[in-house]
């Protein structure tokens, strides 16, 4: 009894100490993340203005959303642009950073130097810098619009051509987003179990097969992190078409009311969260299930093996039994012969 009491006291004190360290973040989270999150949803249903007396609320239901979708002419095209940017940039970032990290992970010299070059955009990447670079034409160094393949795609579907053109026109920007993903992928590659590769090589797999069957499936969890990171990073970046609109509605909210800004922000956030959800569903780690399945299979195989072994053992004993049986019968026969001899005698 005494011991139990002591233990609970100890854990309680460690609870206290832990929450002491956690306190600033905890207050911040509740006050500046959790409460605002729900308050924004609440706000979006009101017409809110600030005047001399303070904040005045007026219930208008879904009026703000109606205004955003149907009465505001700029918002809908911006949403579409935003979705296209996310749809094109995130896969491009994933693929490019994966290729670069695979290249960097081979046996090459100056790896540290290359890594330094690829990581430097992380340090300087900010909205105004990027805007100035784009305005001064310092970022476009590939012009795809003249290439015949691009013309063919354009004839086939202008929408697709727009997306591809967007990737190539902003190729530097996309590359500049890959700084952190490359490091994450390289880290993931180095953590991978080298025995897997050896086993595959012994089984006669070539590099291409190893890449598709071993490397990529094992990088899935890293890819999930990279994709979520990219979605969030692009959403809050100034070059993104909806960003300026969102920020302007927040800062100049007295005209249309804070509730309208709330509605806009909510729609925008829902889109971002939907993207995070899609990424999560697509790249969710199913390795554990596969592993469990393989474990179960292995167990089953082992069980079968054991049964076989036992059967073999039984067979062995059977043959011995047969031998014994023969021996006994021979003995009996001998005995009988002996007894018959005795009787004859």
């Amino acid at each position: 009894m005494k011991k139990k009491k002591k233990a609970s006291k100890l854990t309680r004190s460690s609870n206290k100490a832990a929450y002491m360290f956690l306190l600033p973040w905890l207050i911040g989270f509740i006050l500046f993340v959790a409460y605002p999150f729900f308050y924004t949803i609440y706000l979006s249903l009101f017409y809110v203005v600030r005047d001399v007396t303070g904040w005045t609320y007026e219930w208008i239901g879904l009026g703000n959303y109606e205004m955003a979708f149907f009465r505001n002419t700029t918002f809908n095209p911006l949403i579409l642009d935003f979705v296209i940017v996310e749809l094109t940039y995130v896969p491009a970032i994933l693929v490019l950073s994966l290729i670069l990290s695979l290249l960097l992970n081979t046996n090459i010299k100056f790896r540290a130097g290359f890594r330094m070059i690829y990581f430097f955009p992380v340090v300087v990447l900010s909205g105004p810098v990027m805007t100035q670079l784009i305005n001064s034409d310092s970022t476009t160094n590939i012009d795809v619009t003249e290439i015949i393949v691009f013309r063919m795609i354009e004839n086939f579907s202008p929408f697709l051509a727009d997306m591809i053109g967007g990737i190539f026109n902003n190729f530097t920007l996309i590359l500049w987003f890959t700084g952190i993903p490359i490091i994450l992928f390289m880290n993931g590659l180095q953590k991978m179990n080298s025995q897997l590769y050896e086993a595959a090589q012994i089984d006669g797999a070539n590099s291409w097969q190893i890449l598709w069957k071993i490397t990529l499936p094992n990088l899935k969890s890293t890819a999930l992190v990279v994709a979520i990171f990219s979605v969030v990073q692009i959403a809050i970046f100034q070059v993104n078409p909806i960003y300026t609109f969102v920020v302007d509605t927040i800062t100049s909210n007295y005209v249309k009311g804070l509730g309208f800004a709330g509605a806009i922000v909510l729609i925008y956030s829902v889109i971002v969260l939907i993207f995070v959800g899609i990424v999560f569903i697509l790249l969710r780690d199913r390795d554990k299930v596969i592993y469990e399945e393989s474990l179960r299979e292995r167990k089953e195989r082992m069980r079968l093996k054991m049964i076989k072994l036992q059967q073999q053992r039984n067979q062995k004993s059977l043959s011995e039994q047969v031998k014994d049986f023969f021996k006994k019968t021979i003995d009996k026969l001998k005995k009988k012969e002996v007894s018959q001899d005795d009787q004859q005698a």
Partner: protein
Amino acid sequence: MTSKLNIEKIKKIVVGHKATSGVLGKIVVYALLIGVSYIFLYPLIRMISMSFLTQSDLINPEVDWIPTKLSFANYAVANRVLQLLPPSLANFSENAFTAILGIFKDGGNMWKSIKNTAILAIIQTAIAALTGFAFARYEFKFKKFWFAMVLLSFVIPLPMVTIPRVMMFFDLQDSVWLPFIELIQGTFLESIFKPRLFNTLFPQATLTLFGQGINGAILVLIFFNFFKMIPISLDEAARIDGATSTQVFWHIYVKLVIPIIITVFLFSFVWNWNDVYSSRIYFWDKNPLITMRLGAFDSQFSDMAGTIPGTGGEARLNEAYRMAATFLSILPLLIMYVLAQRKFIEGIERTGMTGE
């Protein structure tokens, strides 16, 4: 026989038994890596090259990369528009004494940006260390829940929580700060405190103090993983000797993790420097932060050119000025990166975001 062997040998050297071990594979890898490096660095090189071009060089079709003569005129203009150096230094030749005194009065936007960013970064590093320590070293109720919340706070888009934050700071200003200012009116304190909370660093500093600075979750993760790597026996030994939690934290962990503190500080500095969003929302337009000034460079330039916007001033604006200003605005970051690039890359590796 021998020729066949030679051919196989050559084939092995050129192609290799793995995709990247032969000469051919190596050449392809290097070519790709160098090509991509060029695209990575192209904007930077172009920026630096352009920032030295004069007006006539820009028009001259023969000049592409290398300016005809070296001149820092563009940088002088960029400095004037962004007000990087203390403004009193401009009339240094006339009155050296007042010019130097002026430095203390108004240190210029470069100094102010570095100061503000450093303040935010120091606060953020300290709070991230505390939070990361709590998660790495203690078992407490709802630990998993709160840890999930750390990750969630990174995924929630910032605009989603911005409006109530702004409203809270307005309320704070109205109900607490203004009465306080009225109270201290007439005393010597009046000159120290500003009558408004916006247009100061206060909102951003408050948010950072409560762990909600820019990319705070990543910094917490870096600390979390690093603290977890330290063997717990060190901690236990100290506790057996009678150390309290605070002493353990200070004497064992903080002193062991100084390298990682530097890494987190660098990251925090860089992200706060580039955090235009929070600056725009909470600091409004008088922010001395250079990246913010750069965003308003075009309008500021035309204002200072002394003409009506859209006629003369903007017309005189050219890429060379813009590039000089851009280069100056990222110069502190580039210097930091060149000096401590190893730390930056280690920091991201330490987040442990891969695998978990």
